[in-house]
């Protein structure tokens, strides 16, 4: 193994090492501080943790691809909420009632289509106007959230379908439905990014857009596909989550974009594009969820949890910078 690949392995392994440290810390600290008498590393607890990671996790997978491609998407939280409304509301539409359980796949399809369309709008604007994705999706974040409120005002949108709830709460080979969605999505996207032309070109564009253009890569269509993909994943996340909960508030999904970005960055993907990995993002997602659960386990409240996660994020990125700095040449600020 040459030093290059070894260096890469260390980088990609770092997040998993961090997870191990968290597990050890919370297990030991839990012995003394825990409010419950269950062990932290309880098997059911870990399964639940994976399930709870799924909503933001699925979005974070898409965010990884968007960021590797050199863009960002701030509108995923609003897309998540709007897709959830379409999912739940469509099942109450009169003609859907006549379809029986066939209403479920149709409602899913409509919700997923919503995400794809919203993503395509972002992608087309970024492609055709050349405006930075940060600005475009900042705008669409506000716009899509506006649509959410236009739909039902401040009222929650609710519909419980017990067949759907049963499906969402099912466990197959021990893992919950949501976990399966997260893992299968991760596997497919990992294949997409490491083995396909689209993935290769996405890295190339994120690393050096001009050189990619000069190599004959059509940058715009790749942008469009990736925004459609993250839109799809945001709505998939909504579908998985709201199939079970059955009620969506107009404020749901707020800050999801930032949690997703946090997980992606913690996993080592670069904000500047061209570098990152789906598997590491999965690590980032799990690490954050572990922190939340672990701090709760030892008795910290939500405010403290957020404070600690924020501090850890900055500390991790600082450490990464120290390790990757090239000599003294970098500007001191």
């Amino acid at each position, binding site marked *: 193994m*040459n030093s*290059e*690949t070894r260096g890469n392995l260390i980088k990609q392994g770092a997040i998993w090492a961090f997870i191990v440290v968290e597990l050890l810390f919370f297990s030991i600290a839990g012995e003394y501080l825990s409010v419950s008498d269950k062990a932290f590393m309880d098997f059911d607890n870990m399964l639940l943790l994976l399930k709870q990671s799924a909503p933001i996790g699925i979005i974070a997978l898409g965010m990884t691809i968007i960021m590797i491609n050199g863009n960002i998407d701030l509108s995923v939280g609003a897309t998540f909420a709007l897709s959830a409304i379409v999912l739940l509301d469509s099942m109450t539409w009169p003609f859907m009632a006549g379809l029986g359980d066939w209403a479920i796949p149709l409602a899913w399809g409509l919700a997923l289509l919503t995400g794809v369309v919203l993503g395509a709008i972002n992608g087309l604007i970024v492609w055709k106007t050349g405006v930075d994705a940060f600005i475009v999706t900042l705008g669409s974040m506000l716009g899509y959230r506006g649509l959410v409120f236009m739909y039902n005002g401040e009222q929650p949108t609710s519909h419980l379908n017990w067949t759907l709830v049963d499906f969402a709460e099912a466990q197959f080979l021990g893992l919950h439905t949501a976990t399966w969605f997260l893992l299968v999505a991760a596997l497919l996207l990992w*294949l997409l990014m490491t*083995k*396909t*032309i689209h993935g*290769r*070109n996405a*890295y*190339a564009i994120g*690393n*050096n857009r*001009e*050189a*990619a*253009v*000069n*190599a*004959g*890569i*059509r940058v715009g269509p790749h942008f469009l596909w990736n925004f459609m993909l993250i839109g799809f994943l945001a709505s998939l996340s909504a579908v998985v989550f709201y199939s079970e909960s059955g009620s969506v508030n107009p404020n749901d999904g707020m800050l999801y974009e930032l949690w997703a970005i946090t997980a992606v960055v913690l996993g080592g993907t670069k904000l500047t594009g*061209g*570098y990152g990995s789906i598997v590491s993002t999965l690590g980032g997602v799990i690490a954050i969820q572990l922190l939340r659960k672990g701090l709760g386990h030892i008795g910290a409240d939500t405010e403290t949890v957020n404070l600690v996660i924020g501090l850890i994020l900055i500390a991790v990125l600082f450490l990464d910078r120290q390790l990757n700095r090239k*000599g*003294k*040449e970098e500007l001191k600020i």
Partner: protein
Amino acid sequence: MTDQTPALRLEGIVKTFPGVRALDGVSFTVMPGEVHALMGENGAGKSTLMKVLGGIYDPDEGQIFIAEQPAVMTSPIEAKAKGVVFIHQELSLADELSVAENIFLGELPRKSLGRVDWGKLYADTDAILKTLNVGFNAKTRVGDLSIANQQMVEIARALTVDPRAVIFDEPTASLTDAEKVVLFEVISDLQSRGVGVIYISHRMEEIFKITDRISVLRDGQYRGTLNTAETNEEEVTQLMIGRKLDLSRNEATHEMGEVALEVRNLSCGDLFHDVSFTVRRGEVLGFYGLVGAGRTEIAETLFGLRDPSAGQILLDGEEVRITSPQDAIRRGISLVPEDRKGQGLILGMNCRDNMTLPQVDDMTAGPFVSDGAEVAIFDQYRDKLDIRTPGWRQLVGNLSGGNQQKIVIGKWLSMHPEVLIVDEPTRGIDVGSKSEIHNLIRDLASQGYAVIVISSEMPEVLHVSDRIVAMFSGRVMREFTAEEVTEDSLIQAISGLTGSGAQVA
């Protein structure tokens, strides 16, 4: 000069990086009032030496003396305070601020309560600008100035301290001839004030025009100092590369084929006008001219990156419209761009992926990219072009300039193009690898490719081309064959002093 105190003296400087001895006991001395050239190939240690001098690197051994006083530089600010100032090739100015604010950046004169003393700031600035004889004032926005004038701002910044030594790093890289004259006047003015000037450049004619002595580094070692008046280009080059360099005129050694590309009266806005030329298979057509003459823009138009406003492009006698790089590539036109790292390579990707980038679409096995096909292509062109890398997994950013350029060239050769356009083939590539790239270009022509070479280096154009198109200000001034071209006629043509009928607008 001999009994004076040196302005600056470096004594036995050693600097090692893991695995490399970047500087190996370098000593050299700059006298006050002297222009001292520092020369060497890329990687010879010039920039490392300057970074030691500027306080960016700590030397492992050795000592810096300023006016014979030992000095320890720990930061660029400290170096400046001690009278050692750098004029970098890449300007570092704040475009949105005024000339005065840029010159005194970080040292703005203050009044009480932290307010800026604007009156003093502008007065001090105007005093400095006056000595430089420039055509702008203290309140001009820096972004509105030409590159040459921005460089003057950098020089003015150097003059806010009383400098003992000023280091110019490739200062003429983006200047026109007229602007160079102004710069050289400023340098000779510094000289007459008793400042020691270190002048780093690859351009021999400048070195011989303005410097008093030439010091040469090779492989991190000091190779000697020559008096400019008593030496010649050949001797300096030999000292730099340790052997003689073959830059003899090209002689056609093979048959030319059909015309592959013909351009008729091509124009693109203000960038270039009424450009016509042909390239045959087996021929190298050189484009020579100053920066901004429109050469790169012609290449970009042929590659589909710009739309022409008038004129025709013919491939194999048939008129074509090239709408995008994909389109150009499909029609067999390839471009090796000017800025290798910025436009040609994905630095964070490995060698193989860079090489197969334009054709990876056709290398699939089912839904996935076929590793085997990619490695096969890479191996083939690594051998063919003699690319030196530990393996295809190596990140392309870790290769030397020459090997990077070969990756870009290999990328296009593997697509079997008809026309290969190479913009500044050896920019930033060290002298030794240069001749390798030159041989490669000649070799490609003899294999039947139609090659266009754009270069700002006259020896290079003369060395590789079968014919040379001289451009000035967006127009073709004259076309030369390799037999008839002389350095004088070429210089006249690209300075707009002559033209075969073409009038300069």
